[in-house]
């Protein structure tokens, strides 16, 4: 694509905007719904799109999450490919009946007559001192809903590619944007609109031989930082970026697990009921004998202020967790993990 912006340093939020723009140029059936999206508030992911496509395609809604989501479902099932923006995970709950009971099930219940090409962009994780109602991750919740695909992009290029994929899919996609990444910068190559439609696979974003970090979203940033620190200690951490959580690329997880024999499953929801449990079970089932650890959120509502750092994993806690996985089986608790909660299966 001979677009001037064809290759440049952009933020995650800008990459999302680029993907929306390229998709909207390619597909006039795409309509965006959300609050203050014409102004691009608060993260800029829709900035300038209203000027470019008009109020007919970039539609500011009232603060009516349920009706907006339901409207998007009805539009999607009648030929209007709809993108709904929900700024924070907590607000998604207001549209969840529409998403789970309708969008995810209509194709199945109608015996395939209805398809619902709806894509829901929703912020996940903490943003930095927004406290409990604005800080939560719902990855396991959403992945467990039959009928939904769940994307969890980890950098600008990944966000662009997954969003373009999601906007070619005929069934509903939840696009989980990690709020800690909105300002993260990276190269962006804008792909032609006619790219393949196969389900994107997980990617090894850093090869390693000693242990694997299975991650997604902001977890990739943490894992790469930890890998760098560990490299200084002679430890080669492989970083597997899942990209999608539903469907889950179990083969890629098993491949990396067999290669390193030590796997850290990294997530942002609590260990009880959270996505790290599914990742760990997948390793145990598909790569028997690997030693597996889970690092996720503390089982707390997110406190206000810098205290939120206790709840979610950090690069330090990822590195510590990997060291624990590398320790001799019998070995004591090892170094304490302050950011997030860690458990290990000392097989």
């Amino acid at each position, binding site marked *: 694509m001979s677009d001037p912006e064809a290759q440049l340093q952009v933020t995650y939020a800008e990459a999302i905007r680029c993907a929306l723009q390229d998709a909207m140029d390619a597909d006039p059936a795409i309509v965006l719904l959300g609050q203050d999206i014409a102004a691009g508030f608060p993260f800029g992911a829709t900035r300038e799109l209203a000027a470019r496509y008009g109020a007919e395609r970039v539609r500011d809604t009232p603060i*009516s999450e349920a009706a907006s989501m339901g*409207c998007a479902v*009805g539009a999607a*099932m009648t*030929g*209007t490919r709809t993108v709904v923006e929900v700024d924070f995970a907590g607000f998604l709950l207001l549209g969840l009946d529409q998403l789970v*009971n309708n969008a995810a099930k209509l194709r*199945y219940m*109608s015996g395939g007559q209805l398809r619902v090409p709806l894509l829901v962009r929703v912020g996940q994780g903490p943003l930095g001192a927004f406290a409990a109602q604005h800080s939560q991750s719902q990855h396991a919740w959403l992945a467990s809903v039959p009928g939904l695909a769940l994307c969890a992009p980890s950098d600008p290029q990944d966000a662009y590619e997954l969003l373009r994929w999601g906007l070619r899919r005929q069934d509903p996609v939840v696009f989980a944007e990690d709020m800690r990444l909105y300002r993260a910068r990276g190269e962006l190559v804008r792909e032609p609109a006619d790219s393949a439609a196969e389900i994107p696979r997980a990617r090894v974003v850093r090869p390693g031989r000693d242990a694997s970090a299975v991650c997604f979203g902001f977890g990739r940033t943490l894992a790469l930082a930890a890998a760098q620190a560990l490299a200084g200690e002679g430890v080669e951490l492989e970083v597997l970026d899942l990209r999608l959580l539903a469907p889950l690329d179990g083969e890629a997880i098993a491949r990396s697990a067999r290669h390193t024999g030590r796997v850290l499953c990294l997530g942002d929801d609590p260990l009880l009921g959270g996505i790290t449990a599914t990742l760990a079970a997948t390793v145990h089932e598909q790569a028997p004998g690997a030693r597996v650890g889970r690092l996720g959120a503390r089982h707390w509502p997110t406190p206000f202020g810098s205290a939120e750092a206790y709840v979610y994993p950090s690069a330090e806690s990822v590195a510590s967790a990997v060291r624990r996985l590398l320790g001799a089986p019998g070995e004591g608790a090892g170094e304490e993990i302050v950011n997030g909660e860690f458990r290990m299966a000392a097989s």
Partner: protein
Amino acid sequence: MNAAPIGGAPTPAELYARMALIRDFERAAYRAYERNELQGTIHASIGQEGVAVGVVAALRAADKLLSHHRGHGHALAKGVDPSRLMAELFGRVDGVCGGKGGSMHITDVGCGFLGSLAVVGSSIPLALGVALSAQRAGEETVCAVFFGDGGVGQGVLYESMNLAAIWRLPVLFVCENNAYAITTPAAHTTAGPGIEERARAFGLAALRVDGQDVEQVAGATRTLAAQARAGQPGLLECLTYRFLGHSRSDPPHGRYRSREEVERWQGRDPLAVLAAQAELSAEACAQLEAAAQARVQEAVEFARASPRPDLHVLAQDVWG
């Protein structure tokens, strides 16, 4: 209240025939239920046929419908094939949804019946999107969505009225007020001057009609549908009554309604009301009823003969 005759539209005999078809279809489904040929639950619309038939009679074939748990009548009125509908209730592969949806989740895209859904209020906002697609495509179609007096309790209804009004969407909200939500009288759960007045407060055009009078329902629908096509969405409240219990788990008359009340309403049977109004002879009515029964009998046999979906069919429509 607007009771204009529905010139150009179906004749009284045709309206009677459609109501008779719904009546007998529901009866047959109930009997199949009692014979354990049907599983789960069903919600019959006997007594409310005038609403389904009246609304659809005033709409165009290209218009779209959405409905709720009590949706068989709406589907039949819109033209869903009785055999494939019955097969769906039986959970058979020749059902409109391949037997995967069942009584509470009926869809037949081919005839514009986009779906009945089981979560009260949940189908309402879908109408906005259906209307938005039509508006964008420059089609002149209206999307009508049926819900009950119980649906009036759901906040999403008001969010949806508001959105329809600000976006000038061609939506017709049809409240089928049969005075009860299961055992709960609407009067106990609905504050203020009424549903019609609520709709006006959200910028909709609104009318309240006697749901037992199919021609009155059709007339009011025509008025509101014309406004909806012009960008002024509306709400139609139809006062009606279900002659049976809420569902299989509710005795035919329930404990919460007096025999007098039930009998008073049964005296306002929409078929009888139309026959009297349009002076249809007893013979004519009997013939139309017999035709309906024959069609429904055929539907039941079709359903019985159809197999259940196999594992292969059931695994479809999830991924890929």
